[in-house]
């Protein structure tokens, strides 16, 4: 079985993002970029399934500009067998990304597609579900435990009410939540090995995917700031203040 893994490059989660003063976007020049944390978890899960003998091949997929290659090399260093780089200079919205994945699925015929539940830049939380719909296959989103046996995935999902367990026949789409696993660290020898692993570059335009731009972002703003409060000296003063506001 092959596993396709979405591997998006985003602004590092430790960066406190700044909105440009003219509201035209956020400052990304010179900002540290990293793999989307949920995608690292997706890749780790795929690698573990390969190590258990459930899968034979793990393919990382990135959609983005020419310099995305270095990022995909990190995925190869972590352990993916090969990478596919869908090359485009334009930002891609989730429905378009899902359509790209569908094209790659037609070619690669994976048994499983694992994506992060959301990317920490646009926080959309859409691509996996959209892909599953277009592919007409099961989706198991927000996964915290995955077991594959007898042609199906048994997935524990983190939902608001607790933990939901569902069964999904393969092929299927899984999206990862934080507690699915702890991704491994990349070791230096693996970085050297990754240099000889293949990266297929596919021009976005050659896929015949209609870019969807139903949504236009017209303005970026900084969030409303909370005003700084007061420090109280002890428990009694705190309770008195909360009672005075009618909160207790």
């Amino acid at each position: 079985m092959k596993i396709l893994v979405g591997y998006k490059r985003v602004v590092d989660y430790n960066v406190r993002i700044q909105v440009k003063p003219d509201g035209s976007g956020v400052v990304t020049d010179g900002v540290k970029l990293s793999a989307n944390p949920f995608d690292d978890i997706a890749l780790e899960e795929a690698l573990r399934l390969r190590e258990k003998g459930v899968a034979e091949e793990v393919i990382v997929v990135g959609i983005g500009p020419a310099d995305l290659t270095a990022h995909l090399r990190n995925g190869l260093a972590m352990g993916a067998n090969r990478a596919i780089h869908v090359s485009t200079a334009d930002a891609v919205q989730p429905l378009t990304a899902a359509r790209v994945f569908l094209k790659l699925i037609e070619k690669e015929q994976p048994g499983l597609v694992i994506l992060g539940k959301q990317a920490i830049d646009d926080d959309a939380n859409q691509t996996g579900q959209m892909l599953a719909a277009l592919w007409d296959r099961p989706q198991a989103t927000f996964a915290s435990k995955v077991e594959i046996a007898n042609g199906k995935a048994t997935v524990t999902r983190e939902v608001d009410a607790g933990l939901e367990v569902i069964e999904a026949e393969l092929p299927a789409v899984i999206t990862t939540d934080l507690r699915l696993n702890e991704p491994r660290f990349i070791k230096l020898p693996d970085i050297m090995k990754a240099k000889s692993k293949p990266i297929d570059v596919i021009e976005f335009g050659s896929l015949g995917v209609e870019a969807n731009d139903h949504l236009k972002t017209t303005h970026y703003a900084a969030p409303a700031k909370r005003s700084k409060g007061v420090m109280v000296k002890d428990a009694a003063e705190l309770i008195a203040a909360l009672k005075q506001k009618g909160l207790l």
Partner: protein
Amino acid sequence: MSKILVIAEHLGGKLNSSTARAVSAAVAVKGEAIDVLVLAENAGAIAAEAAKIEGVSRVLTIARPENAHPLAAVLAPQIAKAAAGYSHVFVPSTTFGKDLAPRVAALLGVAQVSDVMSVEAAHTFKRPIYAGNAIITVEADPAHTVVATIRTASWSAAASGSNSVPVEAITVDAALPTHTRFVELQQGKSDRPDLQSARKVVSGGRGVGSKENFDIIYKFADRIGAAVGASRAAVDAGYCPNEMQVGQTGKIIAPELYMAIGISGAIQHLTGIKDAGTIVAINKDGEAPIFEVADFGLVGDLFKLIPELELSL
């Protein structure tokens, strides 16, 4: 004119308050009609609750055994069919809606607006990105159906009780897949208020130190009638279950009072509490970032301070 279809969220035969919050967002579109769609095995009691929500024009039900559990793969094709004739489909941005809405959008071939914070015009919305560190204004193409999830913390629940609208059972011609099956829901049992709709929330973080120590948080929360939440660090460390996590990837909440105890305040956590009325921080590190957003801060050892708080009540 806009016609909005709101998808009802429910569990155990009861309507979730997230539905009435999504109705509030629908009201803000200022359309001609707001219909609530209930998909369930037995829709009666849920539909009756929905029919009381102010602003709703009609409640539609699709009652069939396949709808016993909220499987997106099963519900989405029915919603996509039922959406014909509507300009907007709104779903609460809870794990239910986040799972479901994109599947509906893809079936309709349209983009989705996630986590709507405000409705500026019928096709113009504000939503957060980068864990709420930027707010964008997005315009949807009026030629297509708008599928959106509604950020529940940004909307108060539409009032309930004075309204009583018709409930109509509908049928849709949609093939339902059997490739996805519900197995079970493991639910924590709790008599405490629901974290997402509670007026008061007490949360504990890594500073609490252990699962056993978390009792001090539960006890204090019970004293003041609060729901209990936790930081990601506390959940990862196994102090409490996942459904208690507050933050970018957990629950986004807006209680009147939020008390963060032993929580340093990573930006991912602050995202989940920005809309709280009053934030109280108790932490032994006076430099912790949580104090930058707190209305009231108290520096000290939580194990000494909580008993003192209880004495002062």
